[in-house]
């Protein structure tokens, strides 16, 4: 006897027809998207096909029409309705955004990464010393540490809380100069970081640069240099898109559907030149191998002003802990003989990120760690 709930095939025709239409439309969209994919030359070869790189690139390249608008709408609704800023960004107090990497270690990170990084740090310090170049390490404290008052109940993980002290102790034990910025930036009446960005704001960068210069001058003989700098008055405040807004997918969201955009009064800081045809710049004495902090809020320029020396700025975005240092060391053959100090600046949170491929390569070249 047949089950009365079992329907004849004809009862499924309408639903099946809709799925068929959807599959056909999907295929048309997929072929259209595939047609627009432009593979970079290294991905067109047989090798790339055989090891799956081309397939991965094709996977990532296929998107729905209007994908960006869909993603923005999704992010905006999640923020407005749930206070959710995605997996990389966390909402603190209203309007305050924090990078998750500053609040807790990135999942999957091995606990020994900080120790491995300290090994790199000591090794490179020795390399520089052999060239008669001094090293000053600068760890910019995380926004979550300095602006903890704006976390509204969130907290840095205990493991991350302890890592700045661990770094300071290890550098002290090794006799490596270190600029501890916690006291300089912490417990201020004004904000030291942008509200919607991971970086220091102009006030924070100014104070940090002064503190770094105070630590650097003794390594340069104690005397401030003679290079003068020109500082323009602050201009009219202009909107500034914070990187945390971009990271949480809210760059194009309408007002009210994302934390408010900040405004910043731009100010020019530049070394003064004589202006003549043969106007020689003073010989380079200070190299800044910095993170994205070295490229924001005129940190490098303020530092140069406080040192009285123009800084050779090799800071880079996305360099994490050692990207800029590796880049600088890679060019060491071209360093001028006048170079006396390398200032290596990185963000505190990069200490606990997984090791980059370049760091792994560099570690592999070091002698094995002694117990």
């Amino acid at each position, binding site marked *: 006897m047949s089950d009365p709930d079992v329907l004849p095939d004809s009862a499924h025709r309408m639903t099946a027809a809709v799925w068929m239409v959807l599959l056909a439309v999907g295929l048309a969209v997929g072929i259209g998207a595939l047609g627009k994919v432009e593979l970079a030359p290294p991905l067109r070869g047989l090798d790339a096909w055989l090891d*799956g790189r081309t397939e991965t690139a094709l996977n990532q390249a296929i998107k729905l029409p209007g*994908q960006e608008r869909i*993603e923005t709408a999704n992010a905006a609704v999640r923020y407005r309705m749930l206070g959710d800023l995605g*997996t990389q960004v966390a909402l603190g107090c209203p309007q305050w955004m924090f990078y998750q990497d500053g609040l807790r270690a990135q*999942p999957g990170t091995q606990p020994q990464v900080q120790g491995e990084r300290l090994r790199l740090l000591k090794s490179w310090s020795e390399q520089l010393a052999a060239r008669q170049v001094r090293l000053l390490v600068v760890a910019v404290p995380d926004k979550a540490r300095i602006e903890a008052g704006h976390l509204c*109940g969130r907290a840095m993980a205990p493991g991350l809380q302890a890592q700045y002290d661990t770094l300071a102790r290890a550098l002290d034990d090794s006799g490596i100069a270190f600029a501890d910025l916690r006291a300089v930036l912490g417990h201020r009446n004004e904000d030291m970081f942008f509200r919607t960005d991971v970086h220091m704001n102009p006030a924070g960068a100014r104070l940090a640069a002064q503190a770094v210069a105070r630590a650097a001058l003794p390594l340069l003989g104690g005397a401030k240099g003679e290079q003068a700098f020109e500082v323009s008055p602050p201009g009219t405040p202009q909107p500034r898109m914070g990187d945390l807004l971009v990271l949480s997918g809210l760059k194009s969201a309408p007002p009210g559907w994302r934390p408010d955009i900040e405004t910043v009064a731009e100010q020019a800081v530049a070394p003064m030149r004589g202006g003549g045809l043969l106007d020689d710049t003073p010989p380079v004495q200070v190299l800044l191998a910095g993170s994205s902090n070295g490229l924001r809020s005129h940190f490098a320029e303020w530092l140069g002003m406080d040192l009285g020396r123009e800084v050779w700025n090799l800071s880079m975005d996305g360099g994490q802990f050692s990207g800029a240092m590796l880049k600088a060391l890679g060019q060491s053959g071209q360093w001028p003989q006048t170079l006396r100090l390398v200032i290596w600046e990185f963000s505190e949170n990069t200490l606990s990120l997984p090791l980059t491929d370049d760091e792994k390569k560099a570690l592999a070249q070091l002698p094995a760690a002694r117990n």
Partner: protein
Amino acid sequence: MLFNSYLFLLLFLPIALMGYYGAARVSLRLAALWLCLASFVFYGWWNPQFVALLAVSILFNYVVGLLVLQAAGAPRRQLLITSAGVIADLAVLVHYKYFAALFNFLGEWGLTHGAMDTLILPLGISFFTFTQIGFLLDCRSGLVKEKGFLSYVLFVTFFPHLIAGPILHHKEMIPQFADPANYRFKAENLSIGGMLFVIGLAKKVLLADGIAPYADAGFAAPSGLDFWGAWATSVSYALQIYFDFSGYSDMALGLAKMFGIRFPLNFNSPYKAASIVDFWARWHITLTRYLTSYLYYPVAMAVSRARERRGMAVGSLAARTPGGFAATIIVPTLFTMGLAGIWHGAGLQFLVFGIWHGLCLSINHGWRIFVVGRKPPSERHSGPAAKALCVLITFVAVLIGQAFFRADGMHSAWQLLAGMMGLHGFGGLESLSHAAGLPFGDAWRLVIGHHLQAVYIVLLLGIAWFTPNAHQILGVHSPAIFKTLPNPNRLLRWRPSPGWLIAALFLLALCLATLHKETRFLYFQF
């Protein structure tokens, strides 16, 4: 290729379906060949180099299977061939999955020198190896009748199950591949398969991926978790793995149905289980079935035969004495679950996971035999409160096992469990005080945003505990080979109606909007 990718949904699936039904109009063999080719493309899209491994594995096992069938009249020769085949399969699995871990483990004891990097694990190697070992054992048992090469290749490679199961039996698939009716397009295949696929996709994309970051973050630093944090992490992972894997299984069953093929049920609301025995009857059902058939029963039979030779009691009579219970229940259970644990990965924590479940199962069997079994039948029924308590106890036992299953190592697992016991302190709900005096929108975002993990947990636990599962919703339309429990809620009973279609399209739209964060399935690593 991932089911939850635009490439799969927009290109692979339409082309594979159209090619299949188009080819079937010409010839059934052409349709089967098309499906094999499509499955190889599906598999190779991740890393084409491993297609060769899959192909060699299939060819090897097919030839060994034929030899086993040919040796049907010579049991010793048949056993030798079967053993050689199984050992070769396991050797490949050990090479990829355990060799580096074993080498490094021996290194820690000073027995080897240097360290070895873990090899890239070919996708789905555990699943296609187990499927084929099952085939060899079935050949020896005389259960295999169909010897066609194409149908064997299709049985192993059919893409919906190739990478993460369900683990299939030759005898339940081959007749389906041989049936010409299954190659004819039927509206119900798309209608039902599409619905089940969308439910599975929603489980994965909206639920499992939504809660995954919280589980990942907690397990990344378990020593920093207080009581609530540790419980939230543990429950988050339990929900992540359930919705991830059952979502995958639903998608696999839905996809197979679109091609006219039915798979066995793999999940049946496991967190509603009122005992650990019940849990394993509902969780990864095809693995439980596999382990029972090929590990538990052979060991239990060997123990029984040994007892019989010594004139001791066997069967249910033996299980009623402590010694007999230990020999006939505890030994095969610990053996089976220990190996099941190791199957999931190289590491002591996986063995502990298996042994923990073996112990829980043994205790559960002991309770059933020595406590419940001695009560009069009229006193064996329990009320709703007692049943709810049983569900909770079972769930906690599962959470303890999962702490070892998910943690990076034994130390991390113990840290999480210590947090769950309150040894790392109890946190508060500090952010609630920060919301006081704020405008409603800001206060809402602050409270909800800071406790989104709790919201997810309540929502997902509610779904897992209080709603019918996908196959109960589909009811008689479910394509699963084994039927699930009846659906108590008439409202949530699927029919091919406009209302259900709108609901499915709405779910699909939500999934597509979230699909850009393409994530892998947890069981791909096993």
